[in-house]
């Protein structure tokens, strides 16, 4: 079974984080929510693997064992 990777894979975690926050600059909460939703859809399709996605959803909901 494919496994969600939870070890760090960023070469520059701070740069990623900054870019993520920057993406939301000057947006209203509604606009931000839409951008986040698009990001999730784009990335989920890129991953494509339902097992990995499901593991990520469980972790995100805080229900992981």
């Amino acid at each position: 079974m494919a496994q969600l990777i939870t070890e760090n894979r960023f070469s520059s975690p701070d740069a990623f984080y900054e870019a993520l926050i920057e993406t939301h600059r000057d947006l209203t909460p509604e606009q931000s929510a839409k951008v986040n939703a698009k990001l999730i859809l784009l990335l989920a399709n890129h991953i494509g693997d339902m097992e990995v996605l499901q593991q990520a959803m469980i972790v995100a909901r805080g229900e992981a064992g």
Partner: protein
Amino acid sequence: MLSTYQYPTFSYRPSEEQRTGTVKRHPVVIVGAGPIGLTAALDFARRGVPVVVLDDDDTVSIGSRAVCYAKRALEVWNRLGSSKRMIDKGVVWKVGKVFHGDSQVYQFDLLPEPDHKIPAFINLQQYYLEEYLIDDAMKTGLVDIRWKTRALSVRDEDGRVVIQAETPDGVYQLEADWLIACDGAKSSIRKMLGLDFVGQVFQDRFLIADVVMKADFPAERWFWFDPPFHPKQSTLLHMQADNVWRIDFQLGWNADPEEEKKPERVIPRLKAMLGEKTEFDLEWVSVYTFQCRRLEQFRHGRVFFAGDAAHQVSPFGARGANSGVPDTDNLVWKLKLVMDGVAPDSLLDTYSDERVAAAKENLLNSTRSTDFITPKSEVSRTFRDAALELAATQPFARSLVNSGRLSTPTTYADSRLNTPDEDGFQGAMVPGAPATDAPLEFTDGDTGWLIDRLGGSFVGVYYAGSNPVPADVADAMDQQTRGRIPVTWIVVTDRRTGAPGTAVDYKGRFRERYDAQPGTTYLFRPDQHVAARWRRFDAARTTAALTRAIGL
């Protein structure tokens, strides 16, 4: 309102039983002369079984109901000899377009493959469909439709079903060996038997308008999310026969159904959509809420539930009548074999098993579509809108856009009537799958269709390719034609041989669609579903598969 259709009235005639006060026992009583009850009645008649149909009304379906009929339902009506009139009168279509705002985001083609007798979909008002089925049922001379007759009570006792029926002349009693409840979504028989009908109601309302106009929209299904003429909601446009167009407007939960139905509310909505200059007349307007629910089991002793009485879906995906017709397709041959003492009673349990599985599939699809069209929460709406916006430029997002996944037939993959594959095969024709069509040329030189030769009884297809049929195979087939469970055999070749009873796969579609090699053998059930398949013919295995397919 304009009317393009003259509703027929079927006159009530007191039954002899009621006049003479004698209680008569019938092999089959069907309650409800909607599309499903009528299809069941016709199927019994085609098998030589006389049926009584009770219906509390005296005409066909009134107002805006089913429009789209899918290939599989049409193939069932084709088997029963009723599809031609429907297809001739109906609007054949296969392309659907989805718009967001004022731009198109997605387009689909429902039958990308050529060489099928029956089209992917037709659109036809439900009243025409019922009228044709009634005509055909009456012509058999075996269907006794009792109009203005309401089933008041139904009891399954002492090996029979006892029915109290109410007519303009009062109440009388009749009995049946078997009863099929096709009494619709509000089924009173369900309530009489105390059965739960559970699921969900969607918190939304839809204005459904049938509009008469001469317009140059193509015969395609057009669905809009958030169109400029109806912001924040969805709209659907579909062509029917007689220049009648079906238009659905999503209204939201807070809309007042009585207000919204008024022409002074409806006409401006239509003008905004169709343009000020388009001339149209209203034929029918109603406001609906939709639900997705089903019975736990479709068999209860001698009573069977089929169609909307057994399961109800939202219309997005056209899975209502389209999934009810395969219910009766599944039930009638089984019941006939049990009536004839050939198959055990337990075969009838597989009706429920197979059709509950199909209903689950339909409900899942219908619920998912409805959740996309009517998001239940703020975040659900955000994702929906995100998917729609992305769909304009990102191909993957188009696959997420769900305006209704249109009805496709169910493969009974887990049915215990299937003989699991022992040999390797490719493609979709797995045990439990409904047969896909292929053009064939028969010995008399006529070109025809595989689908016309399947059904009614068990049918075996032996693919010889370019080889002759070995004598022992031909002998074994001949014996099976005369067996206790008769099998009709068709030999398919890849070229003309002139041998009687053979069919030529002149376009190679059979070979392609059934992954056939010389020797490949398929066994089809009387409802055209695959029961078993092998790489070579084996009489003993065929007999074992037959036995299994009738639940022995």
